[in-house]
């Protein structure tokens, strides 16, 4: 019954949106193009597709909204998480004058490569997923903004939090991509500063399947915590293989494993108690959050939004707001975005600093509880009902 109901609702909404799209030209609204770039094929495609769907959702909802001055159109490009392809598609978007702004990149190496391109062609973009600090702090391009926080914020909070939990000894596994290496770098720094001890660091390739050798050595080191800097696929393998080798240490991940896929992949039982950290407010709790999840479900996307979907959604909305305000003009839009201060978005208040980096007010801590990523504060771990391993 309930199911039928939702189906009914969904069809109606789809119809409404469809109508919105159909009728858009008849209202003779001007069409404004927005670019989206992310990895749609290959290893990290799940996040890329999630991001695309979320951005797409933002656009659809906006078009369905009669108050919007323009009809928006999302131009999606696949960067395959490869810098040279990234530069190509970036050039494509940036050179296309009809595109006003872009929601760009999950992979940091790609973002590093394309930033100069966007700057050169004056296309304002908002990075929705790449966490490498250098993207905004490494070079100073007026066009390049970032709505998600950097791995610095994340690692800082993570290190402090874990020390508070009373852990002393860490073993670190990270993949050798920019994502993993970066996290390793910053997390280690903060951990040392806070007096944590690192027993061993293991860099592994991003397509590695077997970690038993690394984990065997770790088992000998007897750490309290195994910190993993990397994305879901490896996270799943490492967590499951920890179990195989009977390693009881606490598993601590990064934003990279904050996905339903992680819990599915590892299985509820094993995933229980895994930690991860994600920049931005706990959007699930914000008013927009429920709407977002609801709408997302209604659109019947074949892939979940994943951890960074909300950021893409927020980025797209920031851009469209700017366009609504000053019209489809790259320079004006850029200036508006530069000035963004305390704007409410799905991921909390967004404020760009002088380097157009969103100063993330807080990093949300997540723990897996009963097969869901629960926000630490209202998990039964915080209340002490349950305990992380080794506590």
């Amino acid at each position: 019954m309930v199911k039928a109901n939702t189906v009914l609702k969904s069809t109606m909404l789809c119809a409404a949106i469809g109508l919105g799209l159909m009728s858009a030209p008849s209202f003779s609204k001007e069409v404004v193009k927005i670019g989206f770039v992310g990895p749609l094929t290959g290893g990290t495609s799940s996040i890329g597709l999630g991001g695309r769907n979320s951005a797409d959702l933002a656009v659809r909802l906006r078009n369905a909204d009669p108050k919007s001055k323009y009809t928006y159109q999302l131009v999606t490009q696949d960067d395959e998480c490869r810098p040279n392809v990234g530069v190509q598609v970036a050039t494509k978007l940036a050179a296309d004058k009809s595109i006003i702004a872009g929601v760009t990149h999950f992979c940091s190496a790609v973002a590093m490569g394309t930033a100069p391109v966007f700057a050169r062609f004056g296309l304002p973009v908002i990075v929705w997923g790449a966490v490498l600090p250098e993207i905004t702090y490494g070079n100073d391009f007026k066009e390049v903004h970032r709505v998600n926080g950097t791995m610095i914020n994340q690692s800082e909070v993570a290190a402090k939090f874990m020390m508070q939990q009373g852990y002393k000894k860490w073993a670190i596994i990270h993949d050798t991509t920019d994502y993993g290496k970066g996290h390793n770098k910053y997390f280690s720094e903060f951990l040392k500063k806070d007096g944590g001890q690192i027993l061993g660091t293991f860099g592994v390739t991003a397509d590695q399947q077997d970690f038993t050798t690394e984990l065997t050595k770790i088992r000998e080191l007897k750490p309290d915590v195994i910190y993993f800097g990397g994305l879901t696929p490896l996270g799943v393998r490492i967590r499951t293989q920890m179990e195989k080798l009977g390693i009881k240490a606490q598993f601590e991940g990064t934003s990279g494993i904050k996905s339903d896929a992680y819990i599915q992949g590892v299985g509820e039982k094993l995933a229980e108690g895994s930690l991860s950290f994600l920049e931005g407010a706990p959007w699930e709790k914000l008013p927009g959050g429920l709407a977002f999840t609801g709408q997302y479900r209604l659109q019947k996307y074949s892939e979940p939004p994943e951890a960074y979907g909300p950021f893409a959604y927020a980025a797209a909305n920031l851009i469209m707001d700017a366009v609504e305000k000053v019209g489809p003009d790259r320079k004006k839009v850029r200036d508006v975005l530069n000035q963004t201060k305390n704007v409410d978005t799905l991921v909390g208040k967004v404020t760009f600093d002088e380097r157009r980096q969103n100063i993330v007010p807080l990093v949300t801590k997540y723990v897996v509880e009963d097969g869901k990523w629960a926000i630490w504060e209202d998990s039964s771990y915080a209340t002490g009902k349950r305990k992380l391993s080794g506590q």
Partner: protein
Amino acid sequence: MNSKTSLKKPATIVLFVTAIVITIYMWLFLHAESQLAVAGLIVVALIATIAGKKLGTMQHIEQAAASRPGLARIWAILGVLALTAAFYDSHFILLMMGGVLLYSTACMGLTLQFGFSGVANFAGAAFFGIGSYTAAVLATHTGLPQLVNIALSGLVAAILGSVLILPVLRTRGHYAALVTIAFGILFKTFIEVNDVLGGPQGLQVPSMEIFGYQFNEGFTLFGLDVSFYVSYVLLSLVICACAFVLLRALERSWVGLSMDVVRTDETAASTFGLHIKRWKVIAFTMGNLFAGIAGSVYGMMVGFIAPNNFTFSDSLLLLSITILGGLGNPIGLIPAALIVLILPEKFQFIQEYRVLLYAALVIAILLFRPDGLLPRKTRLFFSKGAA
């Protein structure tokens, strides 16, 4: 010789018409964005080739080209120039054109290794990458003029390649394939793992620059501001053309002949005194030189390089261009490169299904044209027309 005179006139016309047609087609193709346009153009191309076969137009063109090689080359270059002019301000298309030219150059290296002397190289991307990285390092840390850097990049690629010479000389076929595959993976993992060369985050590559003229600044011509990529396309064209001429000269010389004999029958070759090792080494080294040079310019054009650009699958990309084009035939490389590099771009509208479709397409080509799009012609040292 009367055949020559009788051929001469039509030849010129045929070539002229062909050049025009191809150029126009390319113009349309590079422009095409919508699914409809792309699909339509592909169909047109298919029909054209099939019809061309049936009506013997193809042979006609080939003969014409064979009888007037100089003219054919001039037309080809003019065609590219025309396209460059037509797209003088559309950066993306120019970038793609540059890419095609440079990849073709690299693949000429592979065709020299694999198509002539039979040394399979599954690490093409590695040598391409060595080129780009060398260029990046030299340009940032030394004051050498970029032209020198390009040359050096090629040399470094060739020299590093010599690490493999011993195993490559001793192994054959699939065994040689493994050696190069191993090297390719080794190279990628290596530059990714150690931070000396920027690690996974990659490196910025400084702009190409000749006599103080910065390519990345672009220029204005007759009041039109021309895309800075034009300079790169022109440079790539020059390099590609040089590589082509060199390769052709090599093919139509005792060197090419010796390499072919070594490839086809090492036993017979040795009983007629051929230095088998020598020819294989020369082919392998020259090939890597080509790849390195192409890589260095590519790096400058794209402006940024990272290990992810030089994975095993990128080596496969190069190899598929080489094989699809028709082993040993440098001309075939251009259409092959178009299919392998630009078609996936044109497929962006099918987004995540791109790679799937592309792979299927390659299989289809291999099934229906096992010798590639333009199979290599039997060698004529000097074209009949000129003889």
